[in-house]
């Protein structure tokens, strides 16, 4: 009931209204934490790869603006994810100190924050850069916040396999921002992140099985068991190795990238095989840690080669597609 109606009726004291308007204890850092800055930095890095690899020249200011929009869009998706998953976060040790379960930010505040960020990032990317990039960004936010967070995560152990597409889109958005289209290299970058996501997240889930079980999240180790998860990690790592080398095999990346992709892929498979043969939290943590290094190094080499003009030492197979 509104203040005017209550006081007019003369039934309720002022204090009853004030009690609902509890002052916020959120600091600026809590809002930053809602945006998942570490995920944002990876998104920016992979989107930058799309921008750098795209043909033609993009003005640095426009490229920077595109990256800011993509980063804010990724942050919006993270905020909406934390808003919806606050119940899960509250029962898991890794996430219980996040701003919403800790009580520093109210769910409604987070929802409004996430929607505003999503709206601004998509609208301004569309207004200032191009509509394809804006459409892809909007779809990515929708895919992560609705398809993955609200549907897949609580429904199927394949959640992170399908949901991994959301994390794979940023290089494609970067490419679309630079060119207004989608090219073969953008699709290759999408595929690398898509096939990298399952072994990365399943390695993490292996040392949080009990927490996921308590939170009733049907992660693969909870539903199919730890042994099956280790097998799937190995299978996806074996698949990832040749996919990681595809940019070199198709002539869009150089020899240094090819050697890095093959060596990195071999190490991923070796770590996955060790995890498969001798399970343990330590092996899972090493697998998780190395998967981050693998993706970072691959994308860094890809960009460095392009900037330094070394990509011409790639295999010529892919040039038949050019």
């Amino acid at each position, binding site marked *: 009931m*509104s*203040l*005017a109606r209550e*006081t*007019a009726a003369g039934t309720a*004291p*002022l*204090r009853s209204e*004030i009690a609902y*308007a509890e*002052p*916020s*204890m*959120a*600091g*600026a*850092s809590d*809002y930053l934490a809602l945006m998942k800055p570490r995920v944002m930095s990876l998104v920016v890095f992979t989107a930058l790869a799309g921008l750098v690899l795209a043909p033609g020249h993009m*003005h640095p*200011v*426009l490229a920077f*603006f595109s990256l*800011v929009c993509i980063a804010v869009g990724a942050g919006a998706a993270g905020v909406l994810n934390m808003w919806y998953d606050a119940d899960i976060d509250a029962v898991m040790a890794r996430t219980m100190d996040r701003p919403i379960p800790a009580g520093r930010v109210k769910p409604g505040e987070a929802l409004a924050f996430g929607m505003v960020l999503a709206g601004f990032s998509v609208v*301004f990317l*569309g*207004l*200032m*850069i*191009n*509509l*394809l990039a804006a459409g892809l960004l909007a779809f990515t936010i929708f895919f992560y916040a609705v398809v993955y967070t609200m549907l897949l995560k609580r429904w199927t152990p394949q959640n992170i396999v399908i949901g991994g597409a959301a994390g794979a889109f940023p290089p494609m958005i970067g490419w679309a921002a630079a060119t*207004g289209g989608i090219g073969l290299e953008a699709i290759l970058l999408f595929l690398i992140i898509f096939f990298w996501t399952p072994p990365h997240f399943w390695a993490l889930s292996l040392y949080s099985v009990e927490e996921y079980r308590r939170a009733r999240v049907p992660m693969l180790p909870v539903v199919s068991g730890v042994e099956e998860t280790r097998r799937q990690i190995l299978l996806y790592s074996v698949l990832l190795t040749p996919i990681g080398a595809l940019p070199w095999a198709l002539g869009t990346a150089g020899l240094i990238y090819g050697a890095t992709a093959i060596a990195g892929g071999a190490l991923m498979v070796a770590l996955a095989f060790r995890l498969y043969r001798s399970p343990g939290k330590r092996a899972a943590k090493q697998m998780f840690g190395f998967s981050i290094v693998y993706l970072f190094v691959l994308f860094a080499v890809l960009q460095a080669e392009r900037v330094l003009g070394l990509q011409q030492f790639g295999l010529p197979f892919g040039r038949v597609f050019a």
Partner: protein
Amino acid sequence: MSLAMDLQPTEPGIVLIAEQKRRRRGRSIAIALALLAFVVLIFAVSLVKGPGVMVRPL
């Protein structure tokens, strides 16, 4: 003017503790900086794109 606006509050209302004031100040500064960055970015993009600032290919 409505009846509610005519009434004088008899209680002090919400009184923020020092920590709440500090955090509110932090949020205000963050909003100000974000707005400033937003304005500068839009201005820079407008300069780069020139008269065709709203021209956007698909």
